[in-house]
């Protein structure tokens, strides 16, 4: 009989035997000997007080019980992260183990797939924003804003101040403040016109001076208002040679003018809407675009995938490039704080943009735009509600103010009906009264919209009854 026909099952060997083999090879009796250099007073002598171990089945049941404590709701929340439809292909691609379980592509020869996917993402975002270069991703929108402001200050060496729109979302603002603190950068808010909701150009003019390195505004802003004067704003910022930084919604760029066309120097935003789930706030993918310039590119944070050739010149290839900007190379000379980023999600956003195509993106954006304006209009017909509170044009977010009583009470009543209604601005913008910001997307069916409207009608009646 040939030995090949009756091969021993190699995996039969006991794990304990293998361990013994390795210990013998090392000349030790016990793994503890490898920890002898740890001072005895430091050794942890009791078992860790954490639950487990659990079998897969037990784990599934355990987690299922915990997650069933969540309530299923219809949400009209936005605020930078929105519920958009995730196509099956996107889900499938980003869970491919070759992509998901790969390391940062520092050895490009075995990571051309990941590198090309990120190059495509960079390219596609640039097509949306209208600027030449996009990096390989930031953690999220808020840190992208912070890094954009810091970058502007570095580029305009003697200016230590930045201007920020007061129509920035409070969640993002809180993060930005922290990043400006370290390098001691001053910031001031530019007012919005309380009736239109748009940036107050007169206020901007007054505040722009030679101390200012950049002005950051959002388009649409956190109230959903589209900045009609975006080009004028960028022009004004350029009169003092400062940088115009705009925060945008990527899907809206299917129908709204790309910031590259109206003078933006840096464009940032949240790429989560491009096929990435909300996941209770993360992980998401911040995008960051600029125009290419030898000097400016050197100040850009984040990784960059570039196209090159093989040394023999025969093949096209992709590689992480301009890496000397990265913080782990610059060390104490570093200018930004990002190493691990959101790679696989950027890849996924690339899949989404490729799948939707220009028409798909446009139609999705139109769904968002029209349903939001529809809802707003309908809510405004109710006696005790006003929507929107601004006269400017709106994309897919809009404000709703309750004229009698508190918005918190309205929100509570809606929760009882399984609806999460809007983000209250009572704390961050008390000047606008009992108001909340609502958001609609292509995930809201007509039934969802009607459910909200019917519920608000009932609440409206109740408010009248008092």
């Amino acid at each position, binding site marked *: 009989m040939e030995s090949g026909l009756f091969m021993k099952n190699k995996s039969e060997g006991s794990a304990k035997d293998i361990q013994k083999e390795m210990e013998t090879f090392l000349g030790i009796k016990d793994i503890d000997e490898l920890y002898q250099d740890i001072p005895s007073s430091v*050794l942890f002598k009791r078992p860790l007080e954490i639950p487990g171990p659990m079998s897969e089945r037990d784990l599934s049941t355990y987690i299922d019980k915990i997650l069933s404590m969540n309530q299923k709701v219809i949400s009209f929340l936005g605020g930078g992260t929105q519920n958009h439809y995730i196509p099956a292909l996107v889900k499938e691609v980003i869970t491919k183990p070759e992509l998901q379980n790969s390391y940062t592509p520092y050895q490009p020869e075995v990571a051309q797939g990941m590198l090309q996917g990120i190059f495509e993402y960079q390219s596609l975002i640039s097509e949306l924003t209208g600027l030449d270069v996009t990096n390989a991703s930031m953690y999220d929108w808020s840190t992208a804003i912070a890094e954009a402001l810091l970058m502007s200050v570095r580029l305009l060496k003697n200016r230590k101040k930045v201007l920020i729109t007061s129509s920035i979302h409070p*969640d993002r603002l809180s*993060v930005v403040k922290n990043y400006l603190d370290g390098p001691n950068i001053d910031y001031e808010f530019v007012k919005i016109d309380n009736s239109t909701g748009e940036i107050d150009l007169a206020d901007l003019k007054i505040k722009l001076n030679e101390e200012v390195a950049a002005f950051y505004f959002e388009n649409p802003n956190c109230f959903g208002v589209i900045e009609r004067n975006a080009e004028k704003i960028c022009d004004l910022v350029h009169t003092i040679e400062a940088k115009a930084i705009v925060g945008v919604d990527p899907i809206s760029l299917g129908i709204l003018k790309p910031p590259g066309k109206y003078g933006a120097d840096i464009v940032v935003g949240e790429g989560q809407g491009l096929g990435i789930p909300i996941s*209770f706030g993360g*992980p998401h993918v911040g995008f960051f675009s600029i125009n290419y310039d030898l000097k400016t590119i050197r100040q850009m944070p984040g990784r960059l995938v570039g196209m090159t050739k093989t040394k023999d010149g025969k093949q096209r290839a992709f590689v992480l490039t301009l890496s000397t900007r990265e913080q782990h190379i610059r060390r104490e000379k570093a200018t930004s704080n990002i190493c691990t980023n959101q790679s696989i999600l950027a890849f996924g956003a690339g899949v989404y943009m490729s799948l939707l195509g220009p028409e798909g993106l446009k139609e999705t954006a139109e769904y968002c735009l029209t349903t939001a304006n529809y809802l707003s209009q309908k809510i405004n017909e109710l006696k005790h509600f006003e929507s929107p509170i601004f006269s400017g044009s709106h994309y897919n977010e809009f404000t709703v103010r309750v004229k009698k009583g508190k918005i918190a009470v309205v929100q509570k009543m809606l*929760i009882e009906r399984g609806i999460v209604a809007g983000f209250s601005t009572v704390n961050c913008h008390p000047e606008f009264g009992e108001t909340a910001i609502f958001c609609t997307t292509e995930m809201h069916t007509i039934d969802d919209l009607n459910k909200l409207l019917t519920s608000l009608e009932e609440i409206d009646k109740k408010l009248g009854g008092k």
Partner: protein
Amino acid sequence: MTQQAKYKEPLVFEIETTKYEKYRPPKIPEEVTKTIIDSTKLIPKEMVREELPNLPRLAEFQLARHYTHLAQMTFSVDTGFYPLGSCTMKYNPKINDFISSDPRITETHPFQPDETVQGNIRILYETDKMLSELAGMARTTLQPSAGAQGELTGILVIRAYHKDQGEEDTRTEVIVPDSAHGTNPATAAMAGYRTIVIKSKDNGLVDLEALKSAVSEKTAALMLTNPNTLGLFEEEILEIAKVVHDVGGLLYYDGANFNAIMGICRPGDMGFDAIHFNVHKTLSTPHGGGGPGAGPVGVVEKLVPYLPKPLPEYDEKNKKYYMNFNLPKSIGKIRGYWGNFSVLVRAYVYMLTLGPDGLKRASQQAVLNSNYLKKKLLELKGWTLPYSPKVPRKHEFVLSGDDLHKETGISTLDVAKRLLDLGYHAPTIYFPLIVQDALMIEPTETESKQTLDEFTKAMAQILKESRENPDLVLNAPQTTPITRLDEVLAAKEPILTWRMYQQAKLEK
């Protein structure tokens, strides 16, 4: 020799469109279109997009094939061994993926009222507790998106503490050893501190005397990894902690090497005041080709008030979980919303799967594998082990290819590239900076003895080739989809997007 699939894969922009139906977004409900008659009036004319964006128009089947090809040209933990020092490329269990994709996680919005997301908050709360126990800390913030951001958070918390003591202006320096990962001094610089670098001793450990000379009332913190980047445990850690604490400074732990010590010793017991975890290293969450990860930061009791808000809490009386924003001394937020939640769920599931004994065994096995591989490779007599060669390493070790380079002209880079031909990912190379021609190797616990033996055989082959047939190594890799590429060209004439590519072609 192993071979990755080789495709001359076009960019999505280069794939021809097809008549086949493309993706269809949902149609706007009739009721809406009846009410909003002219949607073009909704956008001010100044802001209307005049030209559609230049995105590809491809059918799903075309893209499915495209991405399958790209995946086939990407090495992953599921493909093979990554002996990458400092990265802890352990296996990413599928159950983590499965659970974190539950719609009750993916579809929840961070601004939903607490009562609608009790399950999520409970997961955050329990993860906080588990990580705090693992590290010997009082509380752990789950907000930071990655290790580097965790470091920044930790340093900002430390800064807030010093400010509260009235010492913001005096404490201006952060100390790091010369073996530190680049993100450490970078973080200190971002937070507005001056970095003081102290040289390691000949045995690779922190020089206590150098540290004593470097500390002063200006010291805000010392940033350390333990075991350090050479894989050596800082035996004098308690003395080091005392030196820093005596001048009123704090100790920050870079958790990149935490995989060596889970359940065996805890940073909190060594005297550290703040630590960050790299969950995409130690706690098995996938690397995703560069991210996302998460970098939770644990702190001792006196630093808890400064942690980013909110913190998840449990109200015993009403039996409800809630997000606590009432933290008046908090540094605020360091990223949007509450953190990379679905990544944290993976880490949570991983810890539950292993339990207390499992986590300890993982570290022990990682250390055993590392020392085993180290000895096997040193037996080949090609590479050397600088710094304390007789002291056992922990989960990783750093070899030097300096002698081999001088003997054969083959550099560590060449060795790394030849390993790609043999089906392995290269180890970390040229780090830490204090080792010449460094090869930093970390097998992790999820590699079998068989893999380690075969890896040793591959390294033996490369050694033989270096001495007898160096061209094979110098010209490596040859079996990968592309051969060595021109990084100089990539940096000198950057082509970073399709637009720039089109522009470059025009200019030619």
